[in-house]
């Protein structure tokens, strides 16, 4: 990290509190984290949780099968509301997927030590979120079995994708983002896989982790290339993560639909993405640290800092909402003005008010450090913000489409059972199931980096 820029905010590197509980050594850190994967028996809690999430994953499969049998008509979409839950969920998931790379890349470049104990976990969450997001662009098409038309390949038709379409940009952005996150995550894992290999008790574990770690042996030469590669990836992932949600926001801002066609979207989508991403990290870490007694590594300070980040990004989002209204009236565009009024008075106003409540009003509680340090309350808040961000996408997509240019073609939207089934199938199903598998299969905290922290002496500080 010699090459990393000097820290911006000094209160973070000379912390008032330790990033690791007192009295930890290289060994104790390693043991504690590795144990979760290697030795600790499967708890009843884990089994129960896994069973439930597995059931929901099956629900997702059923929903998708039925979808492919009958067509997208089983959803609530219609003309004019051509995009419903599918795209709402897509944007929401992609947004959540931003926290991981952000934490591991940007905070790494900014030399924020506190990222260490949550980055691995956040990256995993990113991958799972992107996996969930990736489903929707495929299944929302009318003929999913033709979706490969969206990839550039020399077909016998001699025709190619249409690169002016934001949907194609999505295809490239999301797949790139998925790939890079995976790579980043994997090389981060390399040393820890080696650790697991060395500590593995039975042969199968040895072979699996042995193969995955590719024979990593902590050589100084390895570390040398490793660090420069890691730094470069961090450098690449940073603009990437910002670009991805920018591109997703283009899906809307490139279109001419009032409420979509606005330049504020890229920044405020990115902010929103980080907002929801951190909320989701909290939603997952809080139970995790409790369940596996990792309070020593994910300390109050981590929660507190994440809460602050949420507060900050939340304010940016609020600014975005304000600007939407401001621009509508400032530009005097009658369609935008009309839409702005629709949000407040239209048939879907309650969604908009709920959105304001979840995304702007409630998070103001985070100003108080008492709230930031009240774990259950923080957990609750993270859920509220996740909901709020989902509503934001709903408001943007649905309300804008219900009443655009020609009044005779105005319509209404409401979701069907299959819409809800798909949503639940990703949240409680696929996503959660992958999380459950992850915490037992791989080290949820970057062991090597923790050892580094111990080395740099973050453990020996006493709470002030």
């Amino acid at each position, binding site marked *: 990290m010699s090459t990393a820029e000097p820290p911006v905010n000094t209160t973070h590197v000379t912390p008032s509190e330790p990033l690791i509980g007192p009295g930890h050594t290289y060994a104790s850190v*390693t043991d504690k984290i590795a144990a979760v994967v290697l030795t600790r028996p499967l708890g009843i809690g884990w089994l129960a949780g896994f069973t439930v999430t597995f059931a929901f994953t099956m629900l997702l499969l059923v929903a998708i099968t039925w979808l492919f049998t009958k067509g997208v008509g089983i959803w609530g979409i219609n003309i004019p509301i051509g995009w419903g839950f599918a795209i709402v969920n897509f944007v929401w998931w992609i947004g959540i997927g931003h926290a991981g790379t952000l934490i591991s890349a940007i905070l790494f470049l900014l030399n924020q030590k506190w990222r260490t104990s949550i980055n691995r976990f956040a990256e995993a969450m990113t991958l799972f979120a992107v996996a969930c997001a990736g489903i929707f662009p495929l299944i929302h098409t009318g003929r999913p079995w033709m979706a490969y038309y969206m990839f550039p390949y020399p077909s016998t038709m*001699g*025709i190619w994708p249409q*690169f002016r379409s934001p949907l194609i940009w999505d295809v490239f952005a999301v797949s790139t983002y998925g790939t890079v996150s995976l790579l980043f995550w*994997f090389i981060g894992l390399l040393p820890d896989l080696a650790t697991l290999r*060395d500590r593995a008790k039975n042969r199968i574990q040895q072979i699996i982790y042995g193969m995955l770690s*590719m024979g990593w042996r902590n050589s100084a030469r390895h570390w040398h*290339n490793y660090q420069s*590669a890691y730094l470069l990836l961090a450098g690449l992932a940073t603009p990437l993560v910002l670009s991805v949600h920018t591109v997703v926001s283009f899906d809307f801002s490139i279109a001419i639909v009032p409420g979509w066609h606005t330049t504020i979207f890229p920044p405020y989508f990115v902010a929103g993405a980080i907002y929801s991403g951190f909320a989701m990290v909290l939603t997952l870490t809080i139970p995790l640290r409790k369940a596996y007694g990792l309070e020593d590594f994910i300390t109050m300070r981590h929660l507190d800092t994440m809460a602050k980040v949420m507060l900050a990004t939340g304010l940016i989002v609020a600014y975005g909402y304000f600007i939407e209204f401001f621009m509508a009236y400032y530009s005097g565009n009658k369609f935008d003005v009309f839409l702005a009024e629709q949000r407040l008075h239209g048939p879907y106003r309650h969604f908009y008010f709920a959105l304001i409540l979840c995304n702007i009003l409630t998070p103001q509680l985070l100003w108080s450090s008492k709230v930031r340090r009240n774990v259950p309350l923080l957990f609750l808040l993270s859920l509220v913000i996740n909901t709020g961000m989902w509503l934001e996408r709903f408001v943007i997509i649905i309300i804008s489409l219900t009443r655009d240019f020609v009044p005779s073609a105005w319509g209404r939207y409401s979701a069907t059972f299959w819409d809800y089934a798909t949503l639940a199938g990703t949240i409680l199903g696929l996503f959660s199931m992958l999380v459950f598998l992850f915490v037992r299969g791989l080290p949820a905290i970057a062991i090597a980096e923790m050892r580094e922290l111990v080395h740099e002496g973050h453990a020996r500080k006493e709470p002030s």
Partner: protein
Amino acid sequence: MTEHRARLHGVMAEFDTPEQLLSAARKTREAGYKRVDAYTPFPVEGLAEAIGTRRSWVPLITLAGGLGGGLSGFGLQYWVAAITYPVNIGGRSLNSWPAFIPVTFELTVLGASLFAVVGMLALNKLPQPYHPVFNVDRFATAASTDRFFLCIEARDPKFNLAETARFLQGLNAQHVSEVKDEE
């Protein structure tokens, strides 16, 4: 524990702290040993330089990947839109380059990242599941936890089993052990 028909890979010393290892590494270099490697459970600042590694090639490889990705990205789009099957899309001009920027950017990042990772692995000669050092039991168990190792390889011109072992002892290492390599 070492089988017969085994060739010597080198001699390995074990230390308690990274600081000890670091100074030992420096001394070893000063003593004129060339083929030396150090092992630490986490990156230790200055160690690589101490055992005499030169600057990494990874950045250059990454740059190459990035350029390749970006150029091919824009090239593809331009070729598709303006050359192979030019069509009038909503009155937009054939080479509507502003619309081609996002994909170009994404492919740049993709190319760079892939090259960075693959390059790193290649430079580290990974995958390499088997390596002689693992034959040292203490290494295999503790190198990835809290012990720090220094290994002088037999290929080193200055290498002499007794000599080198003694030299390492002199650097107050915990243990010094031979590293055997199977034929």
